[in-house]
């Protein structure tokens, strides 16, 4: 297949995926969602009033019509107003998405750097005590529940039973000091849990690299260990690393931070999505499903491009 064929194939796949995700999401979260008309109608509504509200919310239309309307909203990225707060959905996303990003990014970035370091140390010390120690640490990180870490860290770092360094919950980010103190405990939680999985991943990637002939050749030419790592091993590991990092972006963006946000009382997108599900707020749900599928499609398409930038062999 030539390059334009590949691009077309990728585009086709992305469109199929967006259609699938939006349809399944629509079916589950919107079509089968609890019927809000009785709640919105107030006390002792007449049959007419209920009919009117059902019409307003679009409940009276058949499924294909409602889904097509949804696709139209998706194309214009205009999902109207939230059923529960009356806020414009795009404004709600613009308000909550940056909060989630600010909450998760430090832990995500530091987690990958830490895991890369630990993975490299473990890979170089294969079978020795450093490797075993790191395996124990990452195995522990993988076995403790995210919730347990979150609660324990709050207790240790942000309560009077522990160090009491940071505020126990809430979210303020007007000044850097406020931001740092509120993001500290969530970041430590993400670091602890994600480095368990990521360390294993990086170790496996690096172990495979260390065995390659070109790495041995670089060492034989007198490259130091550090230089080999940064100049040879790291660039050659970029493909799996990029894949892992990029494919976790949509999940962060949307499902993101439900637990952290609801436990620490942070007004991010995970919390508002969860609230939308429990209250049947269809416009918000439609927007979130659309956003996550579009993000995934963008990642799928850009991964192919990036592969070709990173790996000259794929340029052809």
């Amino acid at each position, binding site marked *: 297949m030539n390059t334009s064929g590949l691009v077309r194939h990728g585009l086709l796949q992305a469109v199929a995926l967006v259609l699938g995700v939006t349809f399944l999401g629509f079916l589950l979260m919107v079509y089968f969602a609890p019927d809000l008309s009785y709640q919105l109608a107030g006390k002792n509504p007449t049959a007419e009033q209920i009919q009117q509200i059902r019409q307003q919310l679009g409940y009276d239309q058949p499924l294909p019509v409602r889904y097509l309307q949804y696709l139209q909203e998706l194309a214009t990225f205009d999902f109207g107003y939230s059923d529960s707060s009356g806020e414009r959905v795009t404004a709600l996303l613009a308000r909550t998405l940056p909060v989630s990003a600010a*909450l998760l990014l430090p832990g995500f970035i530091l987690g990958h750097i830490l895991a890369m370091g630990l993975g490299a140390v473990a890979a170089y010390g294969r079978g020795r005590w450093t490797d075993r120690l790191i395996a124990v640490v990452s195995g522990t990180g993988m076995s*403790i529940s995210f*919730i347990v870490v979150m609660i324990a860290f709050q207790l240790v770092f942000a309560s009077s039973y522990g160090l009491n360094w940071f505020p126990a919950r809430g979210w303020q980010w007007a000044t850097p000091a406020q931001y740092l103190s509120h993001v500290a405990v969530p970041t430590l*939680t*993400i670091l602890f849990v994600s480095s368990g*999985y990521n360390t294993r991943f990086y170790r*496996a990637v690096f172990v495979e690299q260390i065995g390659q002939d070109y790495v041995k050749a670089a060492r034989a030419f007198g490259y130091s260990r550090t230089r080999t790592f940064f100049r040879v091993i790291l660039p050659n590991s970029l493909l799996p690393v990029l894949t892992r990092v990029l494919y976790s972006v949509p999940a962060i963006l949307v499902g993101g*931070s439900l637990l952290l946000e609801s436990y620490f009382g942070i007004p991010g997108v995970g919390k508002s999505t969860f609230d939308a599900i429990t209250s049947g707020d269809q416009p918000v749900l439609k927007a979130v499903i659309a956003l996550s*599928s579009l993000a*995934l499609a963008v990642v799928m398409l850009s991964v192919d491009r990036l592969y070709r930038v990173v790996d000259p062999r794929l340029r052809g």
Partner: protein
Amino acid sequence: MMWQRWWERVRQDPVTLAALVLIMLFFGVACGSWLGLIGGGWSDTSSLLRGGFSAEHWFGTNAIGQDIFQRAVFGTGVAFQVGVSVALGATLLGAVFGSLAGYFHQRAGDGLIGWLMGVIESIPFYLLVAALAFAMQGHNLAMYLAMTLAFWTTTARLVRAETIRLRQMPFVEAARTLGVGQSAILSRHILPNTSHLLLIQFTITFVGAVKAEVVLSFLGLGIQDGVSWGLMIAESTSDLLAGHFSNFLVASISLFLLVMALNLLADAMQDALDPRFSHPADPGPAEPSPAEPSHGT
């Protein structure tokens, strides 16, 4: 032969042996709970609120005077019930769809199943469960169904890859030449040869389900009647504010020990049974397993 090799390894590895013993212990407790021998008094209240360790209440009591030990025992039963049923369902689905996709590689069926897996994996796990729970109006089985639906794809991808490999092996070609039908080739020649993958995936899915139950119960989407480790952790947050830690510690340590032991067992199986992973990397997709909210879900 494969299993003998595995047992030889386990016997010489004290860590895996200890993990196996721990799992059997937990399983024994779970059986005791199912048979009503222990943990039957998990919902009885007493006048002792937030009591400490004593001969009568081994691990103390919670905010309304319920015995924490009995609740943890009952929770063990629930954990196994969730783990085994979700792991069975997801492994079965993964085996069927994975082998079909692999057998019809590069044909329409493969593409369709691949598309379906991509779609399911693209929906954030907790949104899927929450949506299903509300669509089923808080039905008890919503959690089981949602987890099975979300967890089968990893197994299916692995089985698919293995089937593509096996399909070209001489013994399958021979069977085909002899006129063995397609379904017989799949069920008698290909699937049995993926049994090691299925067993490893069963264990990994078991772990995922136990951990996800805790998160979902914490969010109010999981266990509806009865008590589980997740519900204990959820109710313990108010105990923690009062400086009473035993509810939280007992539930989270039980959870940690069972998950750790199962993880160690899965690693040992992977080492012994799956020669390609002499040291296991995540076999799944680029994301961490859906069971683990590692990026802050």
